[in-house]
């Protein structure tokens, strides 16, 4: 293999490129990204950047020296527009064509939007800087969608002195992600601080002075942030013959087609640890998957390894540090195994079938969480794990 192209120059793409070099690949390595900036980190956008605690320079994922040391053919500010697997070329928006022997797709996701003009979204540095300029004390911010992203932005805006309203279609925010009980605890953090929350409402449109709801009501706002999920960036793969359906569909090796691998938020792959296909939008999974995809692309066919991670994410909201391991969606049961929901200090374990498949902790020390990660990684039986770790419940 002498020519490898990586499309998407963020967490997953950079990790794939670095891994290829670490594995000893010394051929041409082209990294294509449509953003003009060198690879930067997104999680701080809704945290330190929005809060104006950091300036954008701190977001760089690698120093210029470290980046230069990779010896990349770096194409920034130019999008890939088509993939022709038959002649193994990627076409770029500037008209050039990149022939490849191996390809890694890491084009991530973009925010879903709503009809109407003038709303903010939060995915890029520019998005974050534009929004933060507007978050001055007393301004009315409506956040559409009370998921993790919306909740983080609401928390920062509240701290900056804005009048914040969260609008959420579900009866309890985050229910589908973390369950109703835990969702309620996370929601209380907003209510305790006077952030308004309206559940069970559907926003149909962004208007000049706020948003319109499905029942016709209008909610006034100076700024509107739409945080209603994301869409995989797969349009450029149309006509490539790759299977696309809520992401680039890959097998357990992160392979989409011969010598074509994919990594990060854009991928729906089969995770053998959970026996299901999933698409994960977590920072650590993006880096891990970039590594896995690169290794499998570069490895001899019999040396490839399935990518079977325990997904992990964190979220910072107000004074809460939320950390979660595993695959929480579609769980059958949630049990508080340490601490107390009422204190906002707890570990909750998630069961699917007879296995421990997830754990979510708020404000707990790392040791309390690590054993649950281990339980998920080893596919521990629910009844063993939950009984042995919470003797207090039985006494």
């Amino acid at each position, binding site marked *: 293999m002498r020519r490898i192209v990586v499309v998407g120059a963020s*967490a997953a793409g950079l*990790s794939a490129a*670095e*891994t290829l070099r*670490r594995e000893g690949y010394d051929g041409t390595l082209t990294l294509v990204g449509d953003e003009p900036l060198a690879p930067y*980190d997104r*999680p701080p956008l809704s945290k330190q950047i929005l809060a104006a605690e950091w300036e954008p320079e*701190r977001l*760089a*994922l*690698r*120093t210029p020296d*470290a980046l230069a040391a990779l010896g990349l053919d770096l194409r920034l500010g130019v999008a890939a527009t088509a993939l022709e697997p038959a002649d193994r070329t990627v076409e770029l928006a500037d008209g050039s064509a990149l022939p490849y022997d191996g390809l890694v797709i890491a084009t991530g996701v973009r925010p879903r939007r709503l009809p109407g003009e003038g709303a903010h979204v939060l995915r890029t540095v520019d998005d974050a800087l534009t929004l933060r300029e507007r978050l001055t004390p007393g301004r009315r911010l409506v956040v559409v969608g009370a998921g993790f992203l919306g909740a983080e932005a609401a928390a920062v805006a509240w701290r900056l002195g804005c009048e914040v309203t969260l609008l959420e279609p579900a009866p309890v925010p985050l229910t589908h992600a973390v369950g109703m009980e835990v969702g309620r605890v996370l929601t209380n953090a907003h209510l305790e601080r006077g952030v308004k929350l309206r559940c069970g409402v559907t926003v149909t449109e962004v208007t000049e002075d706020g948003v319109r709801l499905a029942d016709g009501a209008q909610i006034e706002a100076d700024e509107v942030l739409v945080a209603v999920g994301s869409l995989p960036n797969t349009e450029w793969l149309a006509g490539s013959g790759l299977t696309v359906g809520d992401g680039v569909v890959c097998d357990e090796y992160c392979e989409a087609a011969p010598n074509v691998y994919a990594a990060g938020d854009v991928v729906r792959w089969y995770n053998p640890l959970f026996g299901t296909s999933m698409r994960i939008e977590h*920072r*650590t999974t993006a*880096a*891990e998957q970039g*590594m896995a995809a690169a290794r499998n692309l570069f490895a001899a066919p019999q040396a490839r390894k399935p990518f079977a991670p325990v997904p*992990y994410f*964190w979220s910072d909201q107000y004074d809460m*540090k939320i*950390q979660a391991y595993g695959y929480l969606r579609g769980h059958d049961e949630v049990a508080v195994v340490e601490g107390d929901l009422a204190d906002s200090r707890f570990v909750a374990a998630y069961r699917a079938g007879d296995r421990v498949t997830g754990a979510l902790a708020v404000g707990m*020390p*790392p040791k309390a*969480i*690590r054993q649950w990660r281990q339980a998920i990684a080893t596919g521990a039986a629910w009844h063993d794990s939950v009984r042995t770790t919470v003797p207090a419940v039985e006494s």
Partner: protein
Amino acid sequence: MKVELEADKCVASGQCVLAAMDVFDQDDDGIAILLEEQVGDDRLDDVKEAVAVCPAAAIRLVEQ
């Protein structure tokens, strides 16, 4: 090689501990702690893994 850790960037994911347990630990808030600043060749692969998986790009390896 020398390991450098920017603790104020750390997001407490603990990924470094999973990658190289004898080089990294976490305090009670989850913030990474460096157990060893100097790593020999035998630990290099694990530390490189930690650098790669750190979600905050808070770890660096520097030649001396």
